[in-house]
């Protein structure tokens, strides 16, 4: 337990990692992760505060508290057969975390508080690799604070509204172009640091439990634009004619998401759940960086809305132990010719296992996610260099292993 707490304390200092379609990090609860991170129609425990706040009224506890962390071990490989280029990422182990609290005010009203990291990305390629004009390394982190207010007018039905306040930071390093060097042949690069990014949004959710065997859930979170006005740009290995420092402003969308889910309990001990998520990535049209002195850059994205299909199961072995398993398919939101290495997100298969061990009011959750991203041969065709747009093409393959640990306390 000591070790777990230490890990949690440490992890607060670390950024979160690249995950799920695009830069969505779907690691918002060790309990739900064990069954494919499908939680919108599973009303139980404090994680419900994130997955479907309306479901708080169905969790059956007056106060529930959860914290957890999911260290991500991931790797992406790249190759280009024509030019014999190979590269891989050296991503640090990063740790998205969450903390949830739910409270019953009365039979009619409930309250939820959530702090979590739904978006993020840490990708660190070999320095000066073939795609270094697009990215050497990037780390994005976004913290969402989301209070929810729940009304449960009947025993079968409840609704919730939420407000989201987000803050985040981005650290991005890339080479200025494919060839520029300083006098000693060191490639010229630019570091962009935005510590001041912030934004706001809202959420709506519905929970329905027509019988003890069946529950239905719907959850919507709006797009949150993280905007930075006071970003700092630094040019390294300057050939002499570029400014050493600059400032910039930029905005990055944390796209809206809807989830529909259905849970069925054939017997008391057994539960199946299915969920469909749609993430509205089409809001990500372009990454625009407006500089003070340097020329502004526009990187076309034009992503597509993407779906995630989740199937999970839970079995209660005893009053102390629940075990879980799940599978989900995560669709890449990136269209052909827009596939860039700063967010290498392919279609992926995801397998999960997990368990909860209950000791009175306290329970411990653990899960393991194994992700394999399908090999994809594609290109990014919209990088601008002078008067041309040289294509950056190649194949990518990736996988990740993510254990997740959490504790819950109910009283």
């Amino acid at each position, binding site marked *: 337990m000591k070790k777990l707490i230490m890990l949690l304390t440490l992890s607060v200092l670390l950024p979160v990692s690249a995950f799920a379609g695009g830069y969505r990090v779907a690691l918002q609860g060790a309990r739900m992760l064990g069954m494919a991170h499908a939680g919108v129609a599973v009303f139980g425990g404090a994680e419900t505060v994130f997955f479907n706040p309306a479901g708080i009224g169905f969790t059956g506890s007056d106060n529930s508290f959860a914290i957890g962390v999911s260290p991500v071990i991931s790797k992406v490989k790249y190759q*280009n057969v024509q030019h014999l280029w*190979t590269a891989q990422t050296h991503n640090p182990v990063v740790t998205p975390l969450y903390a949830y609290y739910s409270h019953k005010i009365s039979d009619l009203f409930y309250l939820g508080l959530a702090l979590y990291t739904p978006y993020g990305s840490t990708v660190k390629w070999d320095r000066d690799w073939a795609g270094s004009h697009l990215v050497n390394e990037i780390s994005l982190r976004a913290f969402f604070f989301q209070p929810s207010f729940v009304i449960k007018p009947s025993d079968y039905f409840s609704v919730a509204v939420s407000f989201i306040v987000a803050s985040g930071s981005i650290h991005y390093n890339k080479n200025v*172009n*494919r*060839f520029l060097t300083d006098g000693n042949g060191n490639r010229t690069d630019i570091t962009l640091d935005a510590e001041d990014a912030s934004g706001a949004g809202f959420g709506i959710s519905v929970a329905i439990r027509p019988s003890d065997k069946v529950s239905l859930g719907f959850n919507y979170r709006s797009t949150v634009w993280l905007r930075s006005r006071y970003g700092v740009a630094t040019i390294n290995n300057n050939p002499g004619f570029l400014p050493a420092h600059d400032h910039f402003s930029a905005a990055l969308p944390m796209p809206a998401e809807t989830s529909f889910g259905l849970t069925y309990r054939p017997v008391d001990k057994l539960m199946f759940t299915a969920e469909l998520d749609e993430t509205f990535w089409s809001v990500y049209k372009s990454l625009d960086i407006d500089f003070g002195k340097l*020329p502004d850059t526009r990187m076309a994205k034009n992503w597509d809305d993407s779906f995630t299909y989740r199937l999970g199961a839970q079995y209660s072995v005893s009053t102390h132990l629940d075990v879980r398993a799940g599978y989900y398919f995560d669709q890449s939101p990136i269209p052909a010719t827009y596939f860039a290495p700063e967010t290498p997100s392919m279609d992926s298969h995801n397998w999960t296992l997990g368990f909860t061990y209950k000791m009175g009011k306290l329970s411990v959750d*653990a899960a*393991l996610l194994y992700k394999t991203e399908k090999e994809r041969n594609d290109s990014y065709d919209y990088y601008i*260099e002078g008067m041309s747009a040289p294509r950056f093409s190649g194949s990518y393959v990736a996988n990740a292993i993510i*254990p997740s640990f959490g504790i819950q306390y109910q009283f």
Partner: protein
Amino acid sequence: MIMKTIYRLLIVAALMLAACEPEFKNPVDPNNVEVSSGSADFSVYVAVGNSLTAGYMNGTLYKSGQAYSFPKLLADRMKEAGGGEFTQPFMDDDTKDIGGMMMGNIQILEPKLVVDAGDKAVERINDQPTMTLTPHPGPYNNMGVPAAKIFHYVYNGYGNIANMASGTANPYFVRMASSPNASVFEDVLAQHPTFFTLWLGNNDVLWYATSGGAGTDQTGNTDPSTYGPNDLTDPGVFAYIYNQMLQALTAGGAKGVVATIPDVASIPYMTTVPYNPVPLDQATADALNQAYAQYNGAIQQALAGGLISQDEATRRTIHFQAGNNAVVLVDEDLTDLTALNIPSLRQATADDLLPLTAASVIGKPDPNNPQLIMGVTSPLGDEYVLTADETAKVRTVTAQYNATIQALAQQYDLAVADMAAALDELAAGLRLDDNSIYTANYFSGAETLPNLFFSLDGVHPNRKGYVILANRFIDAINAKYGATLRKYDPGYFDTNISILPQN
């Protein structure tokens, strides 16, 4: 207890999965590449040529330019297909990496051109060369000798320091000749090449163009010893020597690539300065028209007297207006009316090409009479204009060279790298497979670097340009000999153009 077991199982599973890395179905191994030489033998590759073969750029030959000469790039790829060592002329004494050359205390060749970001000007770097005439005898695989014309290549004594004074020796060949009286071509043959590239003839037309047609078209004159430096070499002389060379090179069964001669009137040295670079307001234009009224009147009298045609009278009438105006120049091809005290003047037209050297003269005071402005009140001399007639002469001679090259390539069954076609593509905007674009434009700011083919001298490619040339040779070799040499991506090569905050 159960929990502990499951917990352990999870940890073990995590460790096992973490050990398995993502893998491609067909992983690329850069250290184990299979490249074929086809029917060619790259074991002894010798490059025959001039400055373009030597790796000359930014107005000189310097260490980091030579390091990426197209033959060196080619040889590096040949090495993957059985190619041997490839030596280049000694340049370790270019310690500042600026090129140029000293003869004692006298600078006989200027160091490299750089961009002075302060003055926004292209200038020679403000530094003294370290290379000298001291011989470092070859022969070397790269036999590119800057400034060599085709007849120089077979001239015994071209590398003899004693001939420097008479101007019949070449300082670069003085340094690299195997012995003072060996010809360049003898040093080529002495290496018994199994494979060669041959790209000669550029200088036989180039200097005529860059000197504004100051030389003579020597078509029909078969004695090169009577030629001046800016003359056009007789296509007959060119064909004779070219044939002799190919005969000797292929005698032992060697294979190779010959390259055609690009249109020198299309290089940025000739196309950058517009014919009408003189901006004027109405008042200044009126004053200038006043100043030329007497000359224009004399032209009208010559027309009335039947000395010149209406067409020539129109061409010779000088007129300025508000806006951009054509420069005034001396054209020796106009009817000579100097006996009547009428100079051979006219204004430039879009058909006239002004060499890059004109840029630093136009609009400046006339050194002989500071009251007069060059190109406006003081006409530009013949050396600053390649007229339409002169351009036509260059193009005719170049076309004859290229016809010879193509015919002889067929006769000796050799590959052709069509550099004439390559420059035409470049002038229209050369689009590569990856959608990048290269142009035949001259440098005009750091933002133009990614698409720049030429170096600051406006004649020779920059490093990216040489990579594109190397790819053209590779295409020709692969197509002709069934080899599979790998091409380069020029986008990842620096231009090797120095932009200095202050020079």
